[in-house]
């Protein structure tokens, strides 16, 4: 009963191809457990992360967004993750202005070797967002043309 009532947040995670995605791979290979709430999208580099993707995720029903890349200084594209660092700072500032709680969006550096740390970061974030509760931006925002109620109802299939 308890479990059923517990809110299960949906979190979209963006990883770079070289460090954080491999960290996720490593977490798998070493069978490190973490909650199933995060669904990952692979980009070549965290520098590819367009804020549009983040806003899209929120407006399409995500309760949180995780962004992760190589550690600063270890970027496989030399220094692109510094751009991610800059964008994240401004993006977070704006989201707070739009009424987002701290913690709905998180930046995590994970090297290819840090499977455990990656899993811990995910677990931590899921807990935070679970406490914050549903964002439901897509339901609020459905009238602004991005999707329709019918589609939302389709979620019942899962």
């Amino acid at each position, binding site marked *: 009963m308890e479990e059923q009532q517990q809110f299960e947040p949906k979190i979209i995670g963006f990883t770079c191809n070289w460090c954080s995605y491999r960290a996720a791979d490593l977490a798998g290979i070493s069978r490190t457990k973490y909650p199933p709430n995060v669904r990952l999208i692979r980009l070549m580099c965290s520098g590819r992360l*367009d*804020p*549009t993707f*983040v*806003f*899209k995720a*929120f*407006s399409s029903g995500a309760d949180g967004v995780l962004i992760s890349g190589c550690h*600063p200084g270890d970027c496989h594209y030399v*220094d692109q993750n*510094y*751009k991610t*660092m*800059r*964008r994240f*700072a*401004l*993006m977070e*500032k*704006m989201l707070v*202005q*739009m*009424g*987002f709680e701290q913690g709905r969006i998180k930046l995590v550096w994970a090297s290819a070797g840090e499977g455990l740390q990656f899993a811990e970061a995910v677990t931590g974030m899921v807990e935070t967002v679970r406490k914050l509760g549903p964002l439901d*931006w897509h339901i*609020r*925002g459905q*009238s*602004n*043309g*991005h999707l329709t109620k019918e589609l939302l109802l389709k979620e019942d299939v899962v």
Partner: protein
Amino acid sequence: MSANSKPKFAMYWGASCGGCEVAVLNTHEKILDIDANFDVVFWPVAMDAKYKDVEAMEDESILVTFYNGGIRTSENEHLAKLLRRKSKILVAFGSCASEGCIPGLANLYSKNELFNTVYAQRDGCSTVNPENIRPQQNWDAPEGSIQIPEFYSILRPINQVVDVDYYLPGCPPESERIAEVVDLVIQVIRGEAALPPKGSVIGAGASTVCDECKRSRNVKTIKKFVRIQDFMPDPSMCLLEQGIVCNGPATRSGCGALCPSAGAVCIGCYGVAEGVIDYGARMLSAVSSVIDSRNEKEIEKIIEGIPDPAGMFYRFSLASSLLGASKSAWHDKE
């Protein structure tokens, strides 16, 4: 109402300031072409007409309707739907209709916060309203009950309410661009030109304001953001390079880069560039990418130079952005 055979033309204002109408009048002699080629059937700012007259018209009997202003009230929505039904071609005219514009910035706040700002009598506020009276949608007066339109909790661009054929951006659209569009429609009527594909942006360029900006540009690295009132920019050099956040790089061309050439930043009234989904995301990403620091603390510091990112990057497009409105504004709806 004249029974002549000229194609019918209508223009209406929703949640807007009236600047769009002025822009149309600003086309000078062009206005005569409109009169010569069209039978103006409905244009509240220019001539007397009643909603019932419009309702009485046959569907699609109006060839072109310029609808400016966004949807803030039930009246705006009703007229948008009505004119859509009555018109062959519905043009979202100006920034408000296309993307929400300044009225859309109100989407950062809840209805309640807005009403407090407007009606509450507070220090530093000129409102005189000792009994703290608020507008009531329905009011039963002895003479009978009065209704005023519902004030929606968020403002929407018209394409979120009705199907739009074309978008004519700008706050307001430059008169030259309007004139061009009018010419185009006239040519189409005469069979000298074909209509552009449905949904396209008309009366604007394919690139962004920088394309029309004469200022010299270089590789960009920004160590400090300054506000134009705090500093005397180099007149010939790109403003963004000087740390002043100019929206030119993300804003559709068409205005002729008027503001930058006059020494003011582009505030983005011509809206998103072709194919861009979210204006603010583009500007935010671009501006932050060129911050010249690798240290989180320092980056925070530099970003303090942008105290109001939402206002700065969504000044015109908040209502049409992916997030559309702030959480508190959405909250009102539930």
